[in-house]
């Protein structure tokens, strides 16, 4: 399975999805004009990955320093998808936030609260 790499832009994060290592990294800002369009390849990649290509353990490192409201919605959708595959896969999510970034911390807490079955670690930078 191909890796998915999307370079960082002013409005979008750096994305690295490595199928061989089971490593997924999304780091940076997220406020694209069309959020769902931008993340479409990410969601598609995950579907393909979890349908028969997943490693024993998959680690997601998410560090979003700034995001718009549709990105919040997108992350909820993303976690929905992870939850769907959680029972058959070992998934670990590291949500990293800066100490001073209250919005990022609150978002992390919201995800933890909403997705009790997922392993979400809040990591302060």
């Amino acid at each position, binding site marked *: 399975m191909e890796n998915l790499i999307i370079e960082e832009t002013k409005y979008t994060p750096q994305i690295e999805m490595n199928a061989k290592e089971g490593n997924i990294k999304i780091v940076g800002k997220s406020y694209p004009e069309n959020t769902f369009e931008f993340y479409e390849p990410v969601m598609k990649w995950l579907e393909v990955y979890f349908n028969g290509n997943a490693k024993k353990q998959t680690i997601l490192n998410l560090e979003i320093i700034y995001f*718009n*409201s549709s990105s*919040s*919605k997108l992350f909820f959708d993303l976690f929905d998808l992870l939850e769907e595959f959680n029972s058959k896969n070992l998934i670990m999510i590291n949500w990293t936030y800066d100490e001073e970034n*209250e*919005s990022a911390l609150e*978002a992390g807490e919201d995800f933890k609260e*909403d997705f009790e079955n997922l392993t979400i670690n809040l990591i302060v930078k």
Partner: protein
Amino acid sequence: MTNHENKLITEIEALKLDFETTTNKLIKDVRRQDKIMARSDKRQQLEYDELQNKLEEVKNLQKEIEDTQKEVVFTMGAIGESRSKETGNHVKRVAQYSKILALHYGLDERESEMLKQASPMHDIGKVAIPDSVLNKPGRFNEEERKVMDTHAQLGYDMLKMSDRPLLKMAATVAYEHHEKWNGKGYPNKLKGEEIHIYGRITALADVFDALGSSRVYKEAWDDERIFKMFKEERGEHFDPTLIDIFFDNLEEFLAVRDSLKDIN
């Protein structure tokens, strides 16, 4: 009959279950949406507050820069004047007269205000004139006069390298404030409107104030004598339009002179 009834019930039961799953999902989605919105509102508020604070900071910094610039420019002018034993108020009065002339001439408020700030630097070149010449009591001989007159060029040379609009303006003022409308001034014997309006304005403002002030080598002229001279020099030393503006708005100039008297 019984079987038929049972089948319907089963279907309805299935529908009920499906309905519940769907409504639960909808409720969950709506809750999520509300949460996202609330978080987003809060974030937006913080962002906007921060933006405004930053903007305020920038504005204060900008004001600080402008004030510093004004002060530096004014101090430079005062240094120029102090070298020739004139008072700080001379500089202030020339500044005010220049603005009044500029506004009535038709320059806009911003440019007139700039000229008010730049005109005090007209004599900055005097810092490079030797004391023996600058403060000589009595009349200059020809050689001394030549040295003294270089202060226009010297002032221009000091300021011309700057890219700052205010200092550029001051360079022009320093360079051309001894040019005369009839072409008999210095350093370049410019004539009429060849002389920049900044130079023409400062020339009049400077002379009006110098004549009305007493110096080591001369008494202050009375107004009658100044006005007579101004009328004679209309179209000779001075731009006729500016002389007309001066007499049409005399009370404004006299009010400035009164409010900024020299304390001896």
